[in-house]
């Protein structure tokens, strides 16, 4: 039987110490059994390792940063589409999702499919809105409050126990054991990421993650829970193991069912000493460890691509428990000519 050939654009080729998911997503796509694919890399910088992995990426084009605006991004994508005739784009960075979600209709009219959360889903899962999210969907979340001045924290003291987690709007989190530490964390983080600062209750416990895929109608197409076994100093998993946990799977089903989530996602969970799960964060895309899901029998990149194409897709019902992923670093030897090519022409 002839398998269809899809041309798929993938971002997040920065397989570095704090990696983007692109390369792992591509490995899943390459192993897809229901279609063949040509992979077009979409990179922001000249040194993203995926650009130089010619055995898995056919060709890479540089695209402008989201901060340059959608108009500029769109004209670049039009150019790339003229050359490559893309069927699907899988964006993998949080920062670019806003633009791709907004552009998804335009892309669709050009024949480029995406499978992304709606703008409403994207916004309401935002860190700043986590409390409201928990209330709306009846999911335990750590209590948190957005504050605009250090003094507001003093009023929280009576409702919260030490330590507190002080979080930035986009990135960064610090643990504070007293008011002085809150103050210093507040100043440091707000200088970098602006206001508000999120003050969050600290949940003692063990961290779990689950990645999966929602079809937009409330069904779970895939879900694989994992426990991190080795964490880098940047807090990234460098090794992890697939686990069987009915509660996590039930929580994932509930999340997908109640939000009618579209697309890939990762939930960051904390299990406290009473065995209760708290939802800490929702990443609206596949995580960098997505290849573990592929390896245990749920090829999420493949299923997501099928959904994007509008093809019928069966839900995965099982996965292998107790499989591990162990990440490793690998030095490629690259000719300067290649770096020159991507740097001067924006294509390689």
């Amino acid at each position, binding site marked *: 039987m002839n398998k269809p050939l899809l041309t798929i654009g993938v971002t997040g080729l920065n397989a570095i110490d704090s990696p983007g998911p692109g390369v792992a997503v591509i490995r899943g796509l390459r192993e897809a059994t229901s279609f063949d694919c040509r992979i077009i890399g979409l990179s922001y910088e000249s040194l993203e390792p995926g650009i130089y992995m010619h055995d898995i990426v056919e060709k890479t084009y540089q695209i402008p940063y989201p901060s340059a605006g959608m108009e500029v991004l769109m004209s670049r994508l039009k150019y790339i589409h003229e050359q490559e005739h893309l069927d699907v784009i899988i964006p993998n960075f949080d920062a670019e999702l806003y633009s791709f979600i907004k552009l998804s209709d335009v892309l669709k009219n050009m024949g480029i499919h995406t499978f992304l959360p709606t703008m409403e889903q994207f916004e309401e899962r935002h860190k700043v809105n986590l409390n409201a999210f928990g209330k709306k969907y009846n999911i335990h979340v750590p209590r948190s409050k957005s504050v605009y001045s250090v003094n507001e924290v003093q009023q929280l003291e009576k409702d919260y126990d030490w330590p507190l987690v002080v979080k930035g709007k986009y990135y960064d989190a610090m643990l504070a054991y007293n008011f002085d530490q809150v103050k210093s964390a507040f100043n440091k983080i707000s200088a970098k990421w602006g206001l508000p600062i999120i003050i969050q209750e600290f949940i003692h416990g063990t961290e779990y993650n689950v990645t999966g895929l929602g079809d937009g109608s409330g069904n779970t197409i895939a879900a694989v829970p994992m426990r991190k076994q080795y964490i880098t100093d940047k807090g990234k998993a460098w090794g992890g193991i697939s686990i069987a946990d009915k509660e996590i799977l039930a929580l994932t089903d509930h999340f997908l069912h109640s939000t009618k989530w579209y697309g890939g996602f990762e939930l960051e969970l904390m299990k406290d000493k009473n065995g209760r799960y708290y939802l800490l964060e929702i990443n609206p895309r596949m995580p960098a460890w997505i290849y573990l899901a592929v390896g245990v029998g749920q090829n999420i990149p493949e299923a997501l691509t099928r959904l994007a194409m509008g093809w019928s897709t069966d839900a995965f019902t099982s996965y292998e428990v107790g499989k591990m992923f162990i990440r490793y670093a690998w030095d490629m030897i690259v000719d*300067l000519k290649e*770096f*020159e090519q991507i*740097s*001067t*022409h924006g294509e390689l």
Partner: protein
Amino acid sequence: MKIKNNIAVSDNGFVFNPGSGESFTVNPVGLVMLNMLRKGLSQSKIVATIIEEYNIDASSVERDLNDFKEMMRQYRLMQHDDE
């Protein structure tokens, strides 16, 4: 001051300094100037060639060439004549 003689310059304006491992890009006019500088042409010769070929006056070229050389110096792509 002249251009370090081990600097590699490609036709499409990619510049590599093997001594430092740094790479650069130059625009077309910069490439023309850089190649003339590497050949050791004098300032006046370079200016004359540019105004011959491009739609520009001598004083502007002179000013831009000096600025360009200053940038090359800051990027450590120049060396003293006796080095």
